[in-house]
């Protein structure tokens, strides 16, 4: 398959799928089938890209056949391909879950096209090599998130979405101004060209470059929910239905951190003496605040939401340590976290579907009634807490080792403390939701609530099991992914391969 086609497939498939969904009107079932086909195809194309990159190195396509700085270039490197593939796995799982886990009305109006276009945005953000184009894909992501978060329009959703919208619009504004500054200073928008220029005569305009990096740090920092910028996340992620929040929570803030890593390894490398300690402090604070926030919550989804923040801290930590091993740790951690976090959200959805609540106080006895679910949760939760040999452990391992080797003992200590606190929260959920007896006062189930029939339950379980298998796979058979992550980190740190692929076609 030619690279020209391959690289735009992840973009075009969801787009065409969304168009088809819009054209069939409000027939939810047809839309569901269309979306499912697209999900499978998307996963296939992403996997092929990943395979290609791992075999033949970075490759690019020049959109519109214009040479690199003048047109837009799509590049697939390992980092992008890994994120894309895990996004596709998650997409398939969430689609499966939505078949039974989402109400008919939402599916009828808008859910599928919005989800597909969101995936299109993810593809674009992962593959583009142009900084303004990146901004555009982020706006696609953003408005899809707006629409999905508010889909259904319950009060909580509206409140969450309003906060999300306001803060993210400001982030977008900062990004746009930052891009303007970059264009003004360098006269180019292509990231590979910019990378070359920064490395050749970056020091002349270095002060302004670090000033610019503040724009991007804030902008993408908001989108990836790092420490003093994360407030929109716990305010909004727990409000929509699980079929929506699982995808957004599992994926979107990771796309933000993906971009931060991309930019701070490719462009803003002239002022690392200042930036890396700053990022280190931010990552530590992000971790701790996230995990402390989670400890305070008593709602299944809110605990998970706060944990997203703390894990963003881990991902940032790899960037802040800035060695190949630590960066590889971040890459691995992102992939792991996309899968695990989505799975946990889906589990919470299944629990809520069967027991009609997200509140830890009202739930109980899942351990006895749904042992399978308990197992699925336990493994994912322990993976999140970084218990060996589950996937989180490998990420933690690489980060800790990288941190020790770089002499950053404090941050490793903090990260280990945070992983203990993560274990605390996860076992808190386990104790309350799975072990505890269900409070007697909560026993009567509302009459109107839909009864979960056998096929329903099966369909609800399928995506969880799918992700569970994926998690186990990268846990037990971790070496290939770790190898890929290390290659990806090398590609990130030694940008020559990237710039060559973009510029010397």
């Amino acid at each position, binding site marked *: 398959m030619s690279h020209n086609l391959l690289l735009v497939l992840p973009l075009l498939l969801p787009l065409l799928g*969304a168009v088809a969904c819009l054209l069939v009107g409000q027939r939810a079932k047809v839309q569901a089938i269309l979306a499912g086909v697209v999900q499978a195809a998307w996963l296939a194309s992403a996997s092929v890209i990943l395979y290609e990159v791992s075999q033949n190195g970075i490759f690019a396509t020049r*959109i519109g056949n214009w040479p690199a*700085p*003048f047109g837009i270039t799509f590049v697939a490197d390992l980092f992008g391909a890994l994120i894309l593939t895990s996004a596709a796995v998650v997409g398939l799982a969430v689609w499966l879950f939505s078949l039974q*886990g989402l109400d008919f009305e939402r599916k009828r109006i*808008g859910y599928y*096209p919005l989800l597909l276009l969101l995936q*299109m*945005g993810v593809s674009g953000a992962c593959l*583009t090599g142009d900084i*303004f184009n990146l901004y*555009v894909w982020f*706006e*696609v992501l953003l408005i*899809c998130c*707006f*629409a999905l978060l508010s889909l259904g*329009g*319950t009060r909580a*959703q509206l409140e969450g979405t309003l906060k999300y919208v*306001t*803060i993210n619009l*400001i982030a977008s504004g900062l990004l746009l*101004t930052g891009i303007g500054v970059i264009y*003004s*200073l360098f*006269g180019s928008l292509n990231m590979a060209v910019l990378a070359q220029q920064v490395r050749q005569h970056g020091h002349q*305009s270095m*002060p*302004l470059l670090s*000033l610019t990096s*503040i724009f991007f740090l*804030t902008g993408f920092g908001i989108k990836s929910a790092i420490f*003093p910028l994360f*407030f929109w996340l*716990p*305010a909004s992620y727990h409000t929509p*239905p*699980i079929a929506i929040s699982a995808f957004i929570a599992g994926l979107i803030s990771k796309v933000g951190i993906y971009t931060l890593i991309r930019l701070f390894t490719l462009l803003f490398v002239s002022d690392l003496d*200042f930036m890396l300690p700053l990022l280190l402090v931010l990552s530590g604070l992000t971790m701790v605040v996230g995990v402390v926030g989670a*400890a*305070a919550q008593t709602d299944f989804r809110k605990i998970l939401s706060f944990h997203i923040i703390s894990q963003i801290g881990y991902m940032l930590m790899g960037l802040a340590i800035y060695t190949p091993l630590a960066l590889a740790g971040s890459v691995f951690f992102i992939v792991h976290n996309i899968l695990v976090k989505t799975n946990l959200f889906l589990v919470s959805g299944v629990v809520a*579907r069967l027991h009609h609540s997200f509140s830890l106080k009202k739930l109980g006895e899942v*351990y*006895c009634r749904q042992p399978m679910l308990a197992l699925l949760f336990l493994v994912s939760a322990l993976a999140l807490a970084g218990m*060996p040999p589950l996937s989180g452990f*490998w990420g933690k391992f690489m980060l*800790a*080792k990288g941190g020790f080797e770089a002499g950053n*003992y404090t941050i*490793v200590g903090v990260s*280990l403390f945070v992983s*203990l606190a993560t*274990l605390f929260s996860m076992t*808190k959920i386990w*104790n309350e939701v799975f*072990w505890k*007896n269900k409070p007697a006062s909560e026993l009567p189930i509302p009459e109107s*609530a839909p009864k979960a029939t056998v096929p329903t339950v099966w369909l609800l379980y399928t995506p969880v099991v799918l992700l569970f298998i994926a998690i186990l796979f990268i846990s037990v058979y971790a070496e290939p992914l770790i190898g890929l992550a*290390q290659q990806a980190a090398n590609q990130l740190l030694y940008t020559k391969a990237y710039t060559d692929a973009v510029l010397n076609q």
Partner: protein
Amino acid sequence: MVYLLLTGFLVAFAAPLLHHWLGRRVFVPLTLLPLIFSAYFIWQVPGVLAGETVTQSISWVPSLGVQLQFRLDGLSLLFALLVSVFGVLIMLYSRGYMGETPLLGRFYMYLTLFMVAMLGIVISDNFFCLFLFWELTSITSYLLIGFHQHKSESRTAAWQALLVTGAGGLALFAGLLLLGQASGEITFSGMMQSGMDIRGSSLYLPAMVLVMLGCFTKSAQFPFHFWLPNAMAAPTPVSAYLHSATMVKAGIYLLARLSPVFNSAEIWQFTLPLVGGITAVMGAALALKHTDLKAVLAYTTISALGLLVMLLGIGTDEATKAALVFLVAHALYKGTLFMVAGTLDHCTGTRQLPLLKGLGRRLPWVGAAATLAAYSMAGVYPSLGFVGKELLYESALHNNGTLGLVLGVALLAGMVFVAIALVLSFRIFWRKSSHPIALQHAASPYLFLPPLLLGLASLAGVSATTPLLLQASLSIAPELHTSGKLVESQGFSLVVQLSALTTLLGLILYLFTPRLHLRPFTTQDFPFGPDSLYHLLFSNFLSGSKRFIHTLQDGYLRHYLVYLLLFFCGLSCYVLWRDALVLHLGDRFYMLQSLRLYEVVLFILVVSALLLLLNTRSRLTSIVVMGLVGYSAALFYILFGAPDVAATQLLIETLTVVIFVLLLHKLPAFSYLSHQVFKLWYVFVAVLFGSVMTYVLLLVQENAVSSDLKDFYGEASYLQAHGRNMVNVILVDFRGLDTLGEITVLAVAAVGVYALLRLKPQKGGKP
């Protein structure tokens, strides 16, 4: 060995299924498993005794140095045998104890998992391989302690055990990482051979402290001991297996394993005996205060673990041997006693010591088992415990540095052991009682055979295990020359006198125990004890985090915005200040000369419009003024050669005004909200942000470069892309992908608006 472990895991995960098929007979295949293990390890004994080591290695994650490397030497084999033989008995005992519960399959699963993990710990050669199994034992222990999941104290105890051992596990993890980094080795055997020069490394000390922390938490050393008595909430087979015989010995195992590396350090020689001594004495003292059978056993276990740590810290030849002998002896007799306790609980329904009386007649075999174990516990000839005690005193006497400490601790602990051994055997079973407790049912063979066998082993184990123990001590301290015997018999020496003294003191203590004010012990007795501190920390962490997060994440959008704006402004200002980025506005004043009148008028218009906007309270006026500002922007674009942009801006502004009017104008009037309290603060933030943006813009203008893109588009736009309007050509051709993304945004906006206004889901909108 690898296949052994693998089979173990498979069988463990199959346990629930097996239970489904076989019912209570599920114990048959699951007992077979440790039986096979035992057979395998016994088969390895001759080789290991001859000094060979069995190694096996499977590549797993080579890029991180995590390999499945296994190595069976004397020490490993000793532990492995302990774990697997014990496993057989526990599986049998569980058959009798657990009865019929729907979760029986899961119980066996966890128990088997634990057994396999424990075997993994003791045969791992790779650091991280060990760590993996180490954490697995923590998890299975958690699940087993919380087996009675409906009881709140079970859950709390399980949680506590997990958090304490988990914290220790993380310390161990960091310690192992540092150790690996300092020595460049990732296997224990490799480090013994070549990595001994890490003593000079600066990481040596932190690594050692971290590893010690890990071991202390796992082996319930002071001040981390408190989880162990609470863990007695687990079913008794679990207590017998995990919390007396095996898991808590994992820390001891690791300390022994690493002692060749660390024992030359002063801090090691100082800390281990001290912590061990405190633990031993404290455990012994607390054991006397309890009336719950399992609690008494738990505290004596803590005490014994303390003795072991102390002995390892002394590190001499005799001490090492003493530690090993005592370890085996303790595992055997304590396991027996726990099982006895479980049987009594099962048959009588209580574990309270004062109630348990006169059981010897009716439960003779149980009584026999208890008596056998008590012999060993009291250290009476010829039990294994006796040998252990002899060696203990010998090592104390041969080491002048720690003579006082060790002797004192050994005497105190030994005395208590004797007393408690008497209580557990004589008082419960054999002393005549006028009010014997009623039996609910007789003990089935499953309930008394395993302890009886184990009790016999503790009596007869001396000769059988001697060579293995010697081999094990060799693998701890390879440079020590050991003779072929454990104890050099020295006749009626000082050691024997001390031993006799201990027994005598113990006897006296026993006679006085009824007069000790026995009452159930609660945390209130020790308001500053570690357990209370743990709970204090726990609840403070919860309440503190609640307060903290409710202050930070208080639900007010404004506050969030202020944080992030200040973050941005602060960093920008810092960078501006650090790099001394100064404007050269003076050089550019000439540009003001080319200012055209209508530009100034436009400027003033916009500013006054904004002022009006700030002051108006009318919604309609606001909308009109907003439109005005938008149209002025369009005029700016026109002035600077951007007709396309201007037209777009004009049209879009019109549409925005229309949407505004349609949606927001007709809303009912709401109260006017003043902003007085924090007004100045918000004005400050707003002005700060505006100034930063202005400053940055002015600064960038001075440093702008001319772009290649502009030249290229100027040349190629018509010739290559067939369009004269460069902006449009860029939009649809050069950067068409941007436009594709952009129209996607519009499309999503349309869908989203439609869904938002049209979708009326059922109430609540639950998942």
